């Protein structure tokens, strides 16, 4: 392993076709499973806890602590559910795990299943990932034929196109055959999850790291990354960078290094304008803030979130009102409709932003944006209601002059030259476009 550039999730993918069981075994695959099965379940979980493996899906909750919350002696089965419903705008890391290292995920599932004494695993794969589903199906069949499952059932479940199903309780609802709408908490899934039974839910990239933790040991794993968040993450760089793509780097690598050294800087020699560090749902950072290390605590101290490490880079040709509008159209489309602040608030934000972009905005509209954001934040059952607020509230806070210019100049200051000018959103395909918002006098 290259000490300067350690790879865990992507180890061996350069030299081998790790979708094949024999090639995965050639790089030591499934040895960690054998090692783990020789240990008491609690010893496996202790190793994961000692490694401080934090969830790579968004919230960064330590996996070992999550497992410690699982209800015991309930008389019900304990389920392990893998969230492969990757659909955060800007995120594409889990897709590579599914299609390039399916056995690493399966091995991680089997080790974790042993650790939490579960015999039943469900992998919820987003519906659009048809090729990835096929790769996983083939890999699972190979693992089964090779006798690796050891009595554990792994079911691959396909989604059907709903961002909300990446939210863990919506995912459970969907898996049970219902509309994907979040549940109130408590009870939390470790107590009352799938089919009312104790359920451990983890992201694909979290579980796919488990074999490496067993292989290296927690002490060795913890030498990578930062103390509060050991290990690597796959950073997904997209937007206006010269070399977009997935790059595995230690946690704590700064945004500047990721954008300029790893992804080749801003494409076409343009100027950096904004960075969305964790997928479209997190607050934006300005060029002055890119020396922030990309780990959960540092990025939160800078006022944003690590999210899914999906770094969307925006250059100086982009109008921030248009960007906010396009982001908000997404949340309006994806709001499941269960909670009023989210269902109605996303629509209000779209209407107000459209009015600003069309040159019909007034100064009071900026206050209205703030008020609507305030009335949405923290007021819905799940985080989508908050995710819908962060882009608008943070763009408005950090690029306020640009919002004001839309009002004062009665239109977009980019005069039709913004890089995302005229971008069409799927909600516009609906037969009944929303009426124009009117600000209260």
């Amino acid at each position, binding site marked *: 392993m290259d000490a300067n550039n350690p790879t865990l999730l992507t180890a061996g993918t350069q030299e081998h076709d790790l979708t094949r069981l024999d090639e995965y075994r050639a790089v030591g695959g499934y040895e960690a499973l054998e090692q783990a099965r020789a240990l008491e379940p609690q010893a496996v979980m202790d190793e994961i806890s000692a490694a401080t493996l934090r969830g790579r899906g968004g919230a960064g909750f330590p996996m070992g602590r999550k497992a410690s919350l699982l209800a015991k002696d309930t008389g019900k089965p304990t389920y392990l559910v893998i969230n492969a419903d990757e659909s955060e705008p800007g995120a594409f890391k889990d897709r590579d795990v599914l299609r390039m290292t399916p056995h690493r995920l399966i091995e991680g599932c089997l080790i974790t299943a042993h650790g939490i004494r579960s015999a039943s695993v469900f992998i919820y794969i987003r519906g659009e990932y048809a090729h990835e589903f096929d790769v996983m199906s083939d890999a699972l069949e190979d693992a089964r034929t090779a006798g690796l499952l050891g009595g554990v059932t792994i079911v691959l479940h396909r989604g059907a196109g709903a961002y909300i199903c990446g939210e863990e309780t919506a995912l459970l609802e969907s898996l049970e055959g219902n509309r994907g709408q979040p549940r109130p908490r408590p009870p939390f899934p470790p107590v009352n999850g799938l089919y009312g039974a104790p359920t451990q839910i983890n992201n694909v990239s979290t579980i796919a790291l488990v074999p490496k933790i067993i292989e290296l040991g927690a002490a060795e794993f913890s030498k990578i990354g930062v103390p509060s968040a050991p290990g690597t993450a796959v950073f997904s760089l997209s*937007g206006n960078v010269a070399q977009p793509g997935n790059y595995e780097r230690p946690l704590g690598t700064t945004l500047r290094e990721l954008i300029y050294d790893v992804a080749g800087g801003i494409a076409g020699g343009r100027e950096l304008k904004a960075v969305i560090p964790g997928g479209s749902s997190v607050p934006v950072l300005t060029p002055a803030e890119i020396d922030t290390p990309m780990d959960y605590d540092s990025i939160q101290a800078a006022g944003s979130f690590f999210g899914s490490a999906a770094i969307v880079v925006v250059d100086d040709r982009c109008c921030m009102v248009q960007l906010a509008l396009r982001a908000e159209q997404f949340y309006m489309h994806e709001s499941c409709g269960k909670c009023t602040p989210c269902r109605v608030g996303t629509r209000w934000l779209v209407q107000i932003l459209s009015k600003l972009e069309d040159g019909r905005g007034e100064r009071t509209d900026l206050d209205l944006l703030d008020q609507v954001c305030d009335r949405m934040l923290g007021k819905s059952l799940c985080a989508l209601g908050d995710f819908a607020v962060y882009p608008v509230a943070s763009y408005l806070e950090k690029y306020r002059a640009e919002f004001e210019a839309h009002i004062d100049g009665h239109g977009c200051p980019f005069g039709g030259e913004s890089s995302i000018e005229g971008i069409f959103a799927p909600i516009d395909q609906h037969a009944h476009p929303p009426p124009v918002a009117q600000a209260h006098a």
Partner: protein
Amino acid sequence: MSTPQSFEQIQELRHKYPQSRSAVMDALRLAQAEHGSWLPPEALREVADALEVTPAYCHSIASFYDMYHLEPVGKHMVEVCTNLSCALVGAQAVLDAFAHELGVRPGETTDDGEVTLRAIECAGGCGRAPVVVVDHVYHEPLRPEDVPGLLEELRGRE
């Protein structure tokens, strides 16, 4: 009544899960494939029969998820991602090129029933944007100049 084949297949799907209602998504996907890529009322009735739920329940599921179609669609489906990462690198020009070549607006199907054009939300190909998904196969990146050739190839398919 279900066709015997899909009825049997849905019974198998039910056994994948501790509770058979979990099979509704797979069952709807299967029914949609059998009914020309959309779910007419009889398809919902067939799924309902096979799973022992009501057609209204099946409708409530089908109407929630973007990948089920409750109205007829073309023989081929062209989906253009227009979310942030794709938008920043020219997705609009790709969508415009398809609309121009096909003579339809996003959300519409060509008069000959061959192709439906849709804009979609993030497909998870942001590192190879702009992303276009044709009949569930990703084309990434796809540029406006690639559009005429792709459509010609598509129309030549059975």
